[in-house]
């Protein structure tokens, strides 16, 4: 294992002091939400204790401090993903889902005409499918899917044909079900070669590997604070500054205007145009602390460590639990993150998760908001275990022990 020490992260993360069913918590649900370390919680606490005021309004001291914290988060998260000009490129939303809705409702509704095509993939989260179907119903656009191969990777053999007539190629950097990491820069380049823009769902990747929107050459990127050790209630939408400037507002109200009269309004310039109403300020303070914390760990180190743990997990799941557990995802750790969707022969995912809970093991049963992908593999649900920078080998050992117990119980 590398020099990175996950035990340090564990000590920093209060939830790990929890005992579940008389056993220490084994948190293997980071793909749903990561656990915040103490600095993130304290940053939000400090904000409410010492600085709370509404942003962008007051002239008094604490109001300025609150604004500095909020805008500081915009700057820091921008730098974290390699954004050249965060002040004009980062919009704070509620979550990744809202970021995609912003993309569809603002850029999509202003740009797409009947017959225009949005290309997504079969391995997308519903957040990157449903908003496009909504536009399909309302505006007659076409939604097209890149298929997934039997080895759980994108089938790119027909990509050039699929990209014909496409205005936007919107795809995930890493599948929340399969763990598959897609060749983002290559896919963006293919989109651009066909005159299409490219949007990337970075929700699953941003907390686990370095992100550089410039190296990707992407046009839009969506992700969530709570999947990168930050708080819930805060999503990030990054767009190239020229694209963002041309996008019309999506939600109307306070904070997003330059002027309002009795005969109309003029929207503000820049990202605040998309941030109507009082924004999640404390959450921005938490995100800022999460960015600092992750930067301190080093995303290269986190990525290397999780890769080693992923190799180990795949090995254990292939050999340690007999032949009744199938991993629905790439069998080798190449271009793959620490997400393991399990199909246990003869035991329903819901029952798997229930038995695992008795061992303090937290996994997520269900379709993971990716029903087209589940259908592609003839599954209604899986039990999904996923890693974070605080995951340990011992977590995997308990997972295996609990899986064996589930298999035994159901015979």
């Amino acid at each position, binding site marked *: 294992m590398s020099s990175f020490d996950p035990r340090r992260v564990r000590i920093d993360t209060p939830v790990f002091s929890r005992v579940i*069913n008389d056993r220490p918590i084994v948190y293997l649900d980071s793909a749903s939400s990561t656990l915040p370390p103490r600095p993130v919680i304290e940053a939000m606490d400090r904000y409410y204790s010492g600085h709370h005021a509404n942003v962008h309004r007051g002239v008094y001291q604490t109001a300025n401090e609150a604004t500095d914290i909020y805008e500081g988060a915009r700057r820091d998260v921008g730098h974290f993903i390699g954004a050249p000009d965060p002040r004009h490129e980062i919009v704070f939303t509620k979550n990744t889902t809202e970021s995609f809705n912003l993309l569809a409702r603002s850029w999509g509704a202003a740009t797409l005409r009947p017959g225009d095509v949005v290309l997504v993939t079969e391995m997308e989260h519903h957040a990157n499918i449903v908003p496009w179907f909504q536009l399909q119903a309302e505006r007659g656009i076409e939604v097209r899917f890149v298929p997934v191969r039997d080895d759980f990777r994108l089938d790119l053999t027909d990509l050039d044909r699929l990209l014909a007539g496409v205005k936007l190629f919107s795809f995930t950097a890493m599948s929340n079900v399969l763990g598959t990491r897609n060749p983002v820069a290559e896919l963006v380049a293919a989109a651009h070669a066909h005159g299409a823009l490219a949007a990337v769902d970075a929700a699953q990747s941003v907390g686990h590997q370095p992100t550089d929107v410039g190296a990707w050459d992407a046009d839009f990127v969506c992700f969530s604070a709570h999947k990168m050790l930050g708080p819930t209630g805060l999503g990030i939408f990054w767009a190239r500054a020229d694209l963002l400037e041309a996008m019309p507002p999506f939600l109307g109200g306070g904070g997003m205007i330059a002027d309002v009269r009795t005969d109309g309004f003029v929207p503000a310039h820049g990202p605040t145009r998309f941030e109507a109403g009082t924004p999640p300020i404390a959450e921005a303070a938490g995100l800022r602390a999460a960015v600092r914390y992750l930067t301190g760990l080093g995303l290269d180190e986190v990525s290397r460590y999780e890769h080693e743990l992923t190799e180990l997990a795949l090995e254990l799941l292939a050999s340690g639990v007999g032949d009744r557990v199938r991993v629905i995802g790439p069998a080798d750790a190449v271009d793959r993150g620490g997400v393991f969707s399990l199909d246990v022969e003869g035991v*329903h995912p*819901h029952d798997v998760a*229930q038995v695992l809970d008795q061992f303090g093991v937290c996994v997520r049963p269900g*379709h993971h908001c990716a029903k087209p992908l589940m259908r592609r593999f003839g599954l*209604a*649900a899986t039990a999904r275990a996923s890693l974070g920078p605080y995951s340990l080998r011992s977590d995997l050992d308990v997972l295996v022990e609990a899986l064996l117990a589930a298999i035994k*119980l*159901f015979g």
Partner: protein
Amino acid sequence: MANLDDLYREIILDHYRSPRNRGELVEATSRTEGFNPLCGDELVIYLIVRDGVLEDIKLTGHGCSISQASSSMMSSAVKGKRLEDVRHVIDRFKTMMTLHDDGTADAPAPEPDLRSDGELAALAGVVKFPVRIKCATLAWNTLAQALDEATA
């Protein structure tokens, strides 16, 4: 702490492994679908209702052990019964699965004349696992809907 044995009683696992009344009914007088969108459980109930009697019932679909066992036990408990008796069993089962605001549940009332009463009581432990109640009730809600449609 709720014990796993309260949930996965042997009789429940038996119904899960060997579900009763599985399959389709070609001559069904009604066909009703039930879904649990959160877990992806799906169920189809086929009924033959004649002269106020539920003459036959068959089920298809997929789901977790609790939903599958509950539907299997339900089919055994209601097959061949008069409709008013079927509705009575449904009401009793749903009462058993009701969690009060204070977190307590009603114990199942003993009713020795119900052939499968003992089996159904095995599902009483489900209320100790509140997120699983919807697994146990899917079949019963779907059957209630099927009866409403059959007698409309």
